[in-house]
């Protein structure tokens, strides 16, 4: 059993979707974590869901990054805890300084909601453990600010997913937002904190016609079983 916590900020709106997938698809224990909670005891992995925390006012993720629960997340991550930020969750992790870089407005200047292809760039993290290197996943995106830019070069993080075409080629036409190096998802150097713009929870059930997302969640479970967790 791997215990999941889903953070619910005011304005998160993919919180129930993440909860549903953990509960009904992965069938793992899942708990709500409120924005003022200061303690993450009892969970093995924290999901920071998508949405518009605090209305995206000021900068996407800026206000959520400065709530008490994020201090707890920082501490949790320092102890090696696993953290996955999806979409607005990725923006929050960057604003909180837990991941390097920033997410700017899409090059098109428009919100973009559609399926995108991403290529798996590294499989030695808990989040990509069960995936094949170079595998192409078809996952929906839905964001206005997903244009990733590194803060310093050389980039201090690790690239986990890059936008590609259906065959896995990194081509400009497949980059939906103008991200540097077609980045769709990154990890910190240690590999325990991951942010990604695509939404794996939106493609984890056959009834929705797409199931590539479930591989990312299953990776966590495989890693947990094989590596036996981390030292908290």
């Amino acid at each position, binding site marked *: 059993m791997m215990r999941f916590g889903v953070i619910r900020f*005011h*304005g998160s*709106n*993919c919180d*129930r*979707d993440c909860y*549903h*997938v953990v509960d009904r698809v992965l069938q793992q224990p899942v708990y709500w974590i409120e924005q003022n909670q200061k303690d993450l005891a009892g969970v093995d992995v924290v999901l920071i869901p*998508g*949405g*518009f925390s*605090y*209305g*995206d*006012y000021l900068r996407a993720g800026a206000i959520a990054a400065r709530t008490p629960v994020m201090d707890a997340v920082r501490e949790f991550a320092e102890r090696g805890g696993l953290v996955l930020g999806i979409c607005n969750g990725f923006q929050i992790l960057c604003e909180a300084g837990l991941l390097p870089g920033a997410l700017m407005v899409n090059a098109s200047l*428009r*919100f*973009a*909601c*559609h399926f995108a292809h991403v290529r798996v760039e590294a499989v030695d993290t808990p989040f990509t453990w069960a995936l094949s290197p170079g595998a192409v996943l078809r996952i*929906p995106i*839905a964001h*206005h600010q997903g244009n990733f830019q590194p803060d310093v070069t050389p980039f201090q993080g690790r690239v986990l997913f890059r936008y590609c075409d259906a065959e896995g080629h990194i081509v400009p036409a497949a980059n939906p937002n103008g991200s540097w190096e077609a980045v769709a998802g990154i990890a910190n150097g240690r590999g325990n904190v991951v942010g990604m713009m695509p*939404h794996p*929870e*939106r493609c984890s*059930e*056959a*009834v*929705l*016609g797409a199931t590539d997302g479930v591989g990312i969640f299953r990776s966590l479970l495989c890693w947990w079983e094989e590596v036996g967790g981390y030292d908290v």
Partner: protein
Amino acid sequence: MTSSVWEAVGLTEAEYRKIGEYLGRDPNALELGIYGLMWSEHCSYKSSKRHLETLPTEGPQVLQGPGENAGVVDIGEDIAVAFRIESHNHPSAIEPVQGAATGVGGILRDIFAMGAQPIALLDSLRFGNLDTPRVRYLFEGVVEGISWYGNCVGVPTVGGEIYFDDAYRDNPLVNVMCLGLVEKDRLVLGKAAGTGNSVLLVGAPTGRDGIHGASLLASREFLEEPEDMRPAVQVGDPFREKLLIEASLELLQGDAVIGINDLGAAGLASACSETATRGGSGMSLDLDQVPRREEGMTPYEVMLSESQERMLVIVEAGREAEVYRVFEKWGLDAVQIGEVTDDGALSVYHQGQEVARIPVTSLTEGAPVYDRPMGEPLMVRETVSEDVLPPPDYNEALLTLVGDPNLCSRRWVYEQYDHMVGINTVVYPGSDAAVLRVKGTQKGIAAVTDGNGLLCHVDPYRGAARVVAESYRNLSATGALPLAITNCLNFGNPERPEIMATFSDVIRGMGDACRALNTPVTGGNVSFYNETQRRSVYPTPVVGMIGVLDDVNKYGKTGFTTLDNPVVLLGDLGTHLGASQYLRVTQNQIVGPVSEPNYELERRMGTVCREGIRRGWIASTHDISDGGLGVALAESAALSSEQLGANIALPNDPRPDVSLFSEAGTAILVEVFSADIEEFLERARAMGCPAQPIGQVIPAELLISHKDFGLLVNLPISKIRQSWEEGLQ
């Protein structure tokens, strides 16, 4: 020029006298202001009521008909769907981003006021032709407003329609539909009952938004430049709306709430009088308790403010703290502003003084109702000439049609809407109707909005009937059983007899169609005065229809899927080109006739389609409507994820142009799995629905031929897709 006191609030002298009769005295300025808004066309439905009463509203599936915040239908397994459509035309003409955004906010509140979790939005939008900067500004602003508000609040925008025509140049139409899910026994109504129970105002503080604003605009013609009416614009806050949804639904899990109502047009005045009317009660309000955003607001401004993201909650006396606790958790105001009384009056206090005292029902049920004079309905009597020439080049005609702004792909728009949040969307925008799963069950819900101003302009009675029939067909093509409709009726000035007669014809057509197809009307909205300097929009009834699928894993959607599958024409193609997009686009002609719908065939075809989908015989579907069979085939190819087209032999009719482009028929295009074709055709015949194999699925091309005329269309799919995808950019 000095106007009379009644004219200043938009009322007539007779109406002013009627107020005097209700009160037994002259109204004071506050009371008159309240009457002015409550008796406005927008709030009172005074011109439309008589006609709306003729619509069918009942059926075993209907749990709540017109008169509440939203209609409600039963989909089985103790689950109900609350749904409604509403217009925000006038606000969107003034400030498109905020006008459209607050339209989304308002309809969401109507749905969660029923205790339902909003699960989907659809919008029907109409603008002038895109060739002027002003229209571009309105179009892009409205899309931005819907995208901003809907995406932020976390309710997916799963469908809708967009139409461009010069008739909407000065008066864009923005109609938004929302649907939500509620357990049958947890339905909440907007009523204030039980003397001594508490009246709470929750959500955002009150400012001067919308004073003298949208409701009055929606009750008059645009005479001046919209820019001159600016101070009234309401600004939406989707973040606060999201918190309001969470807090309201959490509160409704308990049993302290007697009733809850949205604050929309006419603000507190409307919410209080409506809830008290439904509860057969009165209400006393202390305006000093209302949380304000601005200083120095008058009682008039507080009572009539249209500030967004507010709700009125009627709660059992002594249990107010339960409300405070929940709303504080979500960072929202919740303040007791009054109580339910038994004297049937709306009494308003300000600084200890009673400043208004009005019999509640005189604001609602007692509002004036008019039988407006009716002249000859507006319609186009000229019919399509027999010798309209076929297109010199069918390839070119078809490419022109699929690239027309009214027929091309809406991807540019719907990709700006989050259509997936909530992880219920099974069939995305682009098909005939959206399909959503109902978590925890096998069921699915299908929803569509449909309007056709052109058809109703040519023939209001038949046009409106065909709009209902087409919505029914859209749902049939997804495999859903249609249940009920909500309507949004967009018209010009009802004081013009010809407009009123047209309205009446539309209502008759809609009513006849709803009776024939067993889809009662559960509510909706009327928007009159969509005209500027006597230039009215097309009569545009928009239908929002919902249906149910027993197994959400078995649905129909558009786009060829499998090589060599037979393509079958279900139903009958039309026999003329009247009121078709083909005539409009290629010949610049808008002429009749409009054919009466074939309800019997519509129902049989629906049954065949549903059964074919349920049994897994049908691989893809597309209803035949705007642009006819030709456009339906082109879209089925353009939406094929496998780059598949079809080789089609047209029926042996002497006019292939009519077969390809008529919109007068009752037909659905279906792709059937090769192994199941015999069984499917036999079943269709047994059920009395014509089913004609017309070709098969082939790679990469669309070929259409006719026995006597040879190969008419010969197009690579890439070319079709290019025209279709680029039409809006």
